[in-house]
């Protein structure tokens, strides 16, 4: 299946007061693919993602979703388009169970009363579709889950709403080896299920393990967006640390020809 761009952004500028954090950024995510977004600390990854998700307004640039130009002014509007973000600090309530967390703020009701049965069915179906078998019961409190299981719940919460694009901000940063593998497998499965996945990560092993494309940010500029199969580990590391690698990347950095 040839991959379609599901989300595309061109010429994005974003400043906080006098500080310009993103410069003329172009970025594309494809249906059925994992696009890794890499870059050093402070490169602007989280800011870019928050612009995509409607948390921040953009100063300049064009935003296309499913090929059509769109304005995304709030997280609600992003969610309505089908864009879901799994935040770095998972937005889960420890004192609620898995189903309750997955439907938080969007509970199914019949009349005034919560429709627990429908929510439970939908949650179970979603977890099934992701082949999640690591949780014992979907009525377990989130406080009793491991880090990997929590990440799984956060991701399942994001795909519950027939979303088209799921953005994951460093989902494996706090996990051990085995749990990282589990979550990466899940990330891969999301794309295989036909979603556009954007994965922010610091970890080159993770990036090469699951991504189809890599977009490298360098000091707020998009150094390059390439197919993962076309580059090597060290090329990506160079893109991250200096913004260029041979022919690839920014040929002029900070106005100086490198």
């Amino acid at each position, binding site marked *: 299946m040839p991959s379609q761009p599901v989300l595309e952004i061109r010429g994005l500028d974003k400043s906080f007061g006098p500080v310009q954090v993103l410069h003329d950024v172009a970025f594309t995510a494809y249906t059925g693919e994992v696009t890794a977004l890499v870059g050093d600390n402070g490169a602007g990854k989280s800011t870019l993602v928050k612009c995509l998700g409607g948390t921040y307004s953009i100063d300049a640039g064009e935003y296309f979703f499913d090929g059509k130009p769109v304005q995304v002014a709030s*997280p*609600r509007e992003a969610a309505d388009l089908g864009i879901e973000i799994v*935040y770095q*600090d*998972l*937005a*889960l*309530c*420890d*004192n*609620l169970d898995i189903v*309750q967390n997955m439907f*938080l*703020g*969007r*509970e199914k*009701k019949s009349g*005034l*009363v*919560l429709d627990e*049965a429908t929510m*439970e*069915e939908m949650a*179970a179906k979603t*977890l*099934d*579709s992701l*082949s*999640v*078998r690591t*949780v*014992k*019961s*979907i*009525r377990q*409190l989130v*406080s*009793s889950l*491991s880090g990997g299981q929590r990440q799984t719940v956060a991701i399942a919460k994001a795909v519950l709403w027939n979303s088209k694009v799921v953005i994951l901000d460093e989902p494996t940063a706090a996990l051990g080896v085995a749990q990282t593998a589990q979550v990466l497998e899940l990330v891969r*499965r999301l794309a*295989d*299920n036909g979603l556009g996945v954007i994965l922010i990560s610091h970890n080159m092993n993770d990036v090469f393990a699951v991504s189809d494309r890599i977009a490298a940010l360098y000091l707020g500029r998009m150094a390059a967006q390439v197919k993962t199969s076309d580059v090597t580990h060290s090329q990506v590391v160079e893109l991250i640390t200096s913004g260029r690698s041979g022919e690839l990347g920014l040929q002029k950095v900070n106005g100086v020809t490198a």
Partner: protein
Amino acid sequence: MSTTTIPEKPAAEAPSVGGNLRGYIERVRGGDMGALPAVFGLIVLCTAFSILRPVFLSSINFANLFTQGAAITVIAMGLVFVLLLGEIDLSAGFTSGVCAAVLAVTLTNHGQPWYIAVAAAILAGVVIGTLLGSLVAKVGIPSFVVTLAAFLAFQGLLLVLVNEGTNIAIRDQTIIAIENKNLPPALGWGLYIVSVAVYAVVQIVRARRRAGRGLTVDPVTVIAFRVGVIALLGGFAVYALNLERSRNALLVSLKGVPIVVPIVLVLLVFWTFVLRRTAFGRHIYAVGGNAEASRRAGIRVDRIRISAFVICSGMASIGGIIAASQASSVDPNTGGSDVLLFAVGAAVIGGTSLFGGKGRMLDALLGGAVVAVINNGMGLMGYSASVKYIVTGSVLLLAAGVDALSRKRAAASGLR
């Protein structure tokens, strides 16, 4: 995605009595004691007092427990909402006093009918709650400070309402009846049968519906056990309250369930329903568990905060009405001294956490019963107010300690 046979659904944990029991034990071990300390405390206290003072078990004293504990329990129910958010309302006691004074002034000084007076008192509670809630949620002053200030200010307001210290008598028979009149014994039994039947039907219908959709259901034995416990406890209470408790039954008969009991039970069922079965209730827990996550999920956190304070003050006003009925008057001490401490104590002893996110309506009832039993029993033992205060203070501290330790334990065992 291809549907290669998925061996088991994540939801499918075979429901069994043993499994339920094991799950419960696991939860207790993990630090979630729930109602256990309160129930245990009640059993120990009741046993001790009945041995030391057999009169504790008399039918008249049994009825006293209900009328003495009612106001505190109702105030505690409202406090649970605020505690669930991890906030506190230190002014709930004097809020109940102010609302009782509004009731008394409207009834006695303005000669209005009881329903106008009750409406005025509850309205006063709602206004107070809106004010406190807005100061906490919108202005951002810590609830501890807002309600500590209100604690002092309402004390003054109460003095103003009762003309700097007079005692306003209440003569309205409807208000007096709340704490001082009883249901006819037959009506008590009738209400009991209807309530137990409705509870059983609701449980069975829910289980049937879930089973019909292939979802996990509590085993029949567990449902039967729950219904059985309610039927047994309720039956015993109605039976005991229907015993003659007048010293001279020929002159005046005194028996039946105090009118305040069904009122408290209706409040209990209503708020339990709101907390457990509505989106609003779910959001109360969510905000108490993780306010930032709730905000990101699109929940209007400010509104939830304000509503919790409105419910708390509104319930305090009902508590004030009950207290006014009990004393047949309102004075500068109504809702004062130990009322707030007892109410917070009731909620916490019942198992509501001071850290937010954990608690139930039933906690207020169980904790309220513990507080009422301590007060009543110590009174029968002839202890002075000083000893009562010290003991109740210690019990509150003990409950808060259990709360804090179980939280630590939960952290250690990976729960939380």
